[in-house]
């Protein structure tokens, strides 16, 4: 059994604490916003100058002056504030966010990761990825465990151009949750139907298995979204 993209996002959302200040990168991370617990107050940061991104507006309700960094038009949540790029990156690079959730092409056992330039990509574009990676105290990566071609994305050493060195704290994939610790990678949770050896076989870097390693607990669907398959 595997998590869907929505399932990964759901699982990450469960781990975000009340009072968190969270930046969501493009791809799976953006989906996290759909699964936040409404009982927990969490501020979503957008690098173009919003702290407190609200839901996407209904079609026809868009405000042309209010957009988020990754998702086009957005609304403002209760308690939101607006500012310019310099203050926004003071938040990011100054370590003020609690979490940056980012997609990745590869993550290494050292916490190095690559997410901004697919090898061979003709026109590079970096955006705020490198700032988020060095600034946020908790960089969580959300990605599929394997590439489309079935190759491991959790590797001994990244071959794609790096986003930042030694910054990833935790990796959420469709198969497992893995912490990046000083001593190496630690398998914390895995999907039902898989065992640590099976996860290791799909992971190039060496995994230690946490003493309390357990199954990922995610419902089959949530608000109509399929979370596992």
């Amino acid at each position, binding site marked *: 059994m595997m998590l869907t993209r929505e399932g990964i996002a759901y699982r990450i959302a469960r781990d975000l604490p009340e009072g968190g200040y969270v930046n969501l990168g493009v791809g799976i991370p953006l989906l996290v916003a759909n699964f936040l617990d409404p009982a927990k107050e969490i501020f979503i940061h957008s*690098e173009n100058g919003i702290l407190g991104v609200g839901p996407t507006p209904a079609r026809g309700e868009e405000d042309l*002056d209010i*957009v988020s960094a990754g998702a086009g038009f957005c609304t403002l949540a209760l308690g939101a504030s607006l500012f310019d790029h310099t203050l926004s990156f003071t938040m990011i690079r100054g370590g003020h966010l609690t979490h940056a959730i980012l997609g990745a092409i590869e993550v290494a056992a050292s916490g190095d990761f690559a997410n901004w330039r697919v090898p061979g990509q003709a026109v590079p574009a*970096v*955006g705020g990825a*490198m*700032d988020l990676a060095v600034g946020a105290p908790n960089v969580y990566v959300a990605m599929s465990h394997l590439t489309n071609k079935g190759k491991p994305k959790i590797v001994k050493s990244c071959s794609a151009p790096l986003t*930042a060195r030694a910054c990833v704290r935790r990796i959420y994939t469709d198969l497992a949750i893995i912490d990046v610790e000083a001593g190496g990678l630690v398998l914390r949770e895995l999907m039902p139907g898989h065992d640590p050896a099976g996860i290791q076989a799909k992971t190039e870097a060496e995994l230690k298995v946490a003493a309390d390693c357990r199954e990922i607990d995610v419902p089959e669907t949530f608000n109509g979204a399929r979370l596992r398959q």
Partner: protein
Amino acid sequence: MIDKTLADCKQAVARVFDGATVMCGGFGVAGQPGQLMEALRQQGARNLTVISNGAGGGDFALGGLFSDGRVRKLIASFPAPSAKAFRERYLKGEIELELVPQGTLADRIRAGGAGLGGFYTPTGVGTELAAGKETRIIDGREYLFELPLRADFVFLKALRGDRFGNLNYRGTMRNFNMVMATAGKVVIAEVDEIVPAGSLAPESIHTPGIFVDHVVQVARHPKLVEKRSEEGST
């Protein structure tokens, strides 16, 4: 009496010269000085260096500068897949690209506007964007040295302006506009409305007039508004 208002965008861009460095504010569809950039496209200056977060879209406004082959170099953080005109020229090898992480771009512009000689940032250390850059260990952490950016002309978009050049933004329009306002020899703002002197509350002025040379009132161009919905954010 101070009066920084101009009649139209054509007048505002008249002095841009071949080889000039030009900053363009905006992020995604918010705070884009689209009318000024379209006027600049029509004005015809060539061999420009453009500093902007993104690279515009197709053949209109900022994107139009690329489709018309008027840009020698782009300094940007995110020339998105939707920046078709730029990408086409870039892939033909006709435009130089200096890719800068977004926070570094904002702070290089800030350093330019604030009279600083440069700064050390942790962003980009150990990546290919650090190539050729000086590194330094400060208090046990590695940093890259980054130089200031300034421009001959800066184009901004704000919601309201007055004859003193004071500007007020709305929503996410501030983005790069506020910092770019500080870093230009000639700074020109496109606003939805020029309001009477004294009608902007002192607390609500985001860009004080000291930074702004000219203000032009233009209705939002229907084509630009339409483009906005198409392009999404960059």
